[in-house]
């Protein structure tokens, strides 16, 4: 049974915004989780709950804008996420996190709790790689995710034979000949 979904979210094409999927891919390749699944959910919006199956809790890894030093790890609770309510929606991309949680609360469908492991972003710009300062925070982010997962009662073990993380978008570009 999957009680917890560990979801990396963010746009992999937008610099530090892609740190969530990046961490998720490493977790997937290197750890075994009992009663939890790891997913790179990209930039989910209103379909967010659809990807969480029957999870009670979603543990999110995402870039955050909190005016701290880039690369700082901060843990947020569900209360932090829904504090500011839901904005007037003009398009489906408006922030979905708070809306998803509040809708799950209202309908009784979807995870009842959420924890966010946030990594302070440096720059989220179209096609820049993840900044070095944010990449250096990856081990600390992984450690924090594992700590939070264990607090949720998820047993985590390191894979005996870890695979290469499937970070396919991070491959350097071959220069076209001619």
């Amino acid at each position, binding site marked *: 049974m999957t009680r917890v979904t560990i979801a990396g979210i963010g746009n992999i094409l937008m610099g530090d915004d892609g740190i969530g999927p990046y961490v998720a891919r490493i977790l997937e390749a290197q750890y075994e989780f009992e009663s939890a699944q790891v997913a790179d959910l990209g*930039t989910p*919006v209103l379909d967010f709950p659809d990807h969480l199956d029957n999870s009670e809790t979603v543990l999110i890894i995402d870039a955050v*804008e909190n005016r701290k030093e880039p690369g700082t790890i901060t843990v947020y609770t569900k209360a932090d996420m829904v504090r500011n309510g839901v904005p007037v929606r*003009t*398009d*489906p991309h408006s922030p979905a996190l708070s809306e998803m949680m509040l809708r799950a609360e*209202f309908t009784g*469908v979807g995870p009842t709790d959420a924890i*966010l492991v946030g990594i302070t972003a440096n720059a989220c710009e179209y096609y820049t790689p993840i900044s070095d300062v944010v990449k250096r925070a990856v081990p600390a982010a992984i450690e924090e995710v594992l700590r939070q997962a264990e607090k949720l009662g998820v047993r985590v073990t390191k894979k005996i034979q870890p695979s290469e993380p499937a970070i396919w978008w991070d491959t350097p570009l071959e220069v076209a000949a001619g």
Partner: protein
Amino acid sequence: MTKRITVDPISRIEGHLRIDVEVDNGAVSQAWASATMWRGIERILQGRDPREAWLFTQRFCGVCTTVHAMASVRAVEDALKLEIPLNAQYIRNLILIAHGMHDHIVHFYHLSALDWVDVMQIPKADPAKTAALAESLSPWPRNSKMEFKAAKDKVLAVAASGQLGILANGYWGHPAMKLSPEVNLLAFTHYLQALEFQRKSNQVVGMLGGKTPHIQNLAVGGVNNAINLDSLATLNMDKLGMIKGLLDEVVTFIQQVYVPDVTAIAGMYADWFKYGAGVTNYLAVPDLVLDTKGTSFDLPGGYISEGNLAGVRRFQTAADQSFRDAVVEDTSHAYYGNSKTTLHPWQGETTPQYTDWQPNGKYTWVKAPRFEGKPAQVGPLSQVLVGYAQGHPLTVKWTNAALDRISAVAGRKVAPTELLGSLGRHGARCVRAAMLSDLAIKHWELLVNNIGKGDTTTFNPPEFPKGTIEGVGTHEAPRGTLSHWVVVKNGKIDNYQAVVPTTWNASPRDEHGNPGPYEASLLHNPIADPEMPLEVLRTVHSFDPCMACAVHTFDPEGRNIAKVKVL
């Protein structure tokens, strides 16, 4: 007195869609649509292998992942003139149909219904009367008094708690809200049920595509779904049976809930038909391919100029020559400093040149696509009109059914030409969803029958020639005409441009000063209360805007609150 209203969802670092309107005597006199974030997506692909472009393009956007994957493989296939096996066409079609049904349901119930439905009227609703009304509209089995009472109780509990949560931010009590408490309760109950059915439709995408949100099964040349009816690991009768079961449920929801709801609400707001027509050039590409060469389709495409339905021009193929030749992107009012203001997508450039928001100069990151030099509206309304004008039987069947329902509620004959406004875009979207619901079953049968004949081919391998080739991949996506334009040089991507539906609709003015569809459609919209510009949202939402292909950074300080600024 002139008032300027800005609706700007300040979304974290970069914003998305921003609308500015000037209001004179209670109606919009000028409008500007702008995107506050730039897309340099095309730059990401230069130098890459065209066979993997679709993996990147489906990350453009959080909402429309599938459509960008599809348009991308089609662009490369068009450049190679590659035929696609029938099974692959049917599997792709089923994915597109399931995605389309999901998207239309979500758009109506979860993105725009609350522009028309006042949830705070629900405490006054009588569930028994609601059930009686619902039964008069539809045979849907979940229209019982008990269902409506349960939904009403939820709203009562939330209202009593003082913590409105998900319901905190509607324009409740706005003078433009006209529905009775019972109709509000009916629509809201279906809003809750719709969550279930949009999900089932998305499950079909996941089952055929390997996974959502990012499908895994595409390939330039076909799909990589292995078909073996006797193997558990592949697409077999068991999985096909499950897919059929899910599709049946979604089809029923669309025909028994979505269509009756939209047509009833439209009939009750019949005075709104006159607002929001805007640009009346309509563009749609043909889709749901029925053969390996891409010459016959279940959804027709074409072009209507200046609302002249009788003069509809038909596109014969998905990348029709008259389409290829007619598309340019104009950047005279967009933040680009390209070598020329208008460029064909194959020669397209994306050189940023940011200025401030200048109403008479540059004011947006959205380029202005133009068809034969003119702005064109895309989306379900365009598709339905293009099909209706050609006498396409499936389009005519569902359009007439919807018009009959609307007319019955409105108490007067509502003509097809009345669909050319904000409310009509909702009506056309439910017509398109109903068409897709019929086609869902048809294409499932086409796939099963073709496999039954012993055909298990799903892929034709691509081969890239030396030299330069060009291709365009089109898809009539839920939000309208999508086209990806690729130039391949010696097997590597040399140029790549995506002209997306919202670029057509949210386009700024062009070199001739012609406004884009959002801008034109907002003119003369009434504005009852500038502090709560519900009417602006109604018109903009009717297009199903999907702006900027998201950044997802979470802002704990809540700078992500949409701002309505009245000057």
